[in-house]
């Protein structure tokens, strides 16, 4: 017994090291559990509020107000344009399309980006709108240029966005002319280029075609511009397609959030949760 105590006394540092490593690994494993989600939520709220204070400190106050008004107006116009474009597209396919035009296009919410990270360890955006403003997980985030990402974490007044340029992000897309379907993901270090997967070599997809979100997505509303095809090379079964993203993430300061919630019924019938990756 005495030798055990001696051993412990002699190797306390190692025991501490093992204990802390054990706790850390346990935390890594439990990263997605509810309690840790709550802690992360609070962290996100604190982080965002301090970041917001810092950004407020450097911004010119009146200029920002004017800017916000212009952006709100812009958002209204953009939603009208999208609504009209959607109607036009649908009217070609079926006569009753205008009656089914989506309500979401008129109700975008505007939010300001209060924190952003595009480093190798931390890749996300934080906006100043949260549960109090009606934001929920898996809502679509966009700008008039195109798709930005989706909401992954929500606190009372802030939300965290998983951007398109994150390897965990995936979305179902379709090309505008040939109606080629595929899955968009981002897998390399170039911030403007994403990839379209699962497009068979027999497809007629052309360079220059615009790519938008499709009906198959479990979180994104359809018809949001995502980017443009810039390169197509054929492999054995599928094409390797590069998409130049429509949104310039380096100059992003305001985003729009679509209040359209993901169709739970659709997700359930597809067999489960959207998961972190979603589509």
């Amino acid at each position, binding site marked *: 017994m005495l030798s055990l105590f001696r051993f412990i006394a002699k190797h*306390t*540092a190692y025991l*501490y*090291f093992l204990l*802390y*490593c054990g*706790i*850390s*690994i*346990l*935390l*890594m*494993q*439990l*990263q997605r559990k509810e309690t*840790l989600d709550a*802690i*992360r939520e*609070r*962290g*996100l709220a*604190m*982080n965002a509020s*301090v*970041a917001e204070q*810092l950004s407020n400190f450097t911004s010119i106050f009146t200029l920002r107000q004017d800017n916000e008004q212009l952006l709100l107006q812009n958002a209204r116009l953009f939603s009208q344009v999208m609504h009209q474009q959607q109607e036009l597209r649908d009217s070609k396919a079926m006569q009753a399309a205008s009656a089914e035009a989506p309500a979401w296009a008129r109700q975008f919410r505007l939010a300001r980006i209060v924190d952003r990270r*595009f*480093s*190798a*360890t*931390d*890749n*996300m955006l934080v906006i100043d709108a949260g549960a109090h403003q009606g934001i929920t997980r898996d809502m679509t985030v966009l700008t008039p240029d195109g798709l930005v990402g989706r909401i992954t*974490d929500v606190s009372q007044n802030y939300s*965290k966005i998983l951007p398109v*340029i*994150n*390897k*965990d992000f995936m979305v179902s897309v379709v090309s505008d002319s040939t109606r080629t379907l595929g899955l968009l993901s*981002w*897998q*390399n*270090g170039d911030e403007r280029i994403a990839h379209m997967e699962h497009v068979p070599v027999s497809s007629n997809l052309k360079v220059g075609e615009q790519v938008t979100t499709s009906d198959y997505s479990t979180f994104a509303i359809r018809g949001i511009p995502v980017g443009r095809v810039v390169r197509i090379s054929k492999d054995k079964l599928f094409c390797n397609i590069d998409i130049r993203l429509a949104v310039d993430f380096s100059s992003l300061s305001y985003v729009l959030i679509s209040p359209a919630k993901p169709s739970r019924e659709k997700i359930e019938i597809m067999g489960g949760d959207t998961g972190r990756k979603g589509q």
Partner: protein
Amino acid sequence: MLVLVQHFIVSRLVILHASPDILTVFIAFVSMSIGQRTGTTYGFAAGLLSGFFTGNIGLSALAGTVEGFTAGYFHVPEESHATSVKKRRMYYIAATTALLSGNLLQALLSDPLSLPLYIRLPEMVILGTLMSMMLGTLMYKLVLKKLLKD
């Protein structure tokens, strides 16, 4: 306080996806001057706090623990009456070792930007360590040197 400074100011100085890390430099200093056990505890606590802001609580805590533990091997006990030159040398070695081990761990276990390993390792480990050591040198000359003499 140092966690806040690191998170809101220092970590924004990003060059090629790498940013300096004053927390690790501080952990290495504690470990070198007080001891491996205390350094490991400080590293774990600092990692937890840092992870609270970034969302990677587990990985940050693990990296902090490893940093504190490795730097502890270069502990200079009070009773050794080591010269200031030796203390300075041990501080630089402890900080470099802690930074290399912590950055390597983070580079291997975390990669939201999906950078290939041959880019991630030089950028995060080598460039990150170099940038942090520049700050570490500055910290030593301005503050830590005085603390060591006491």
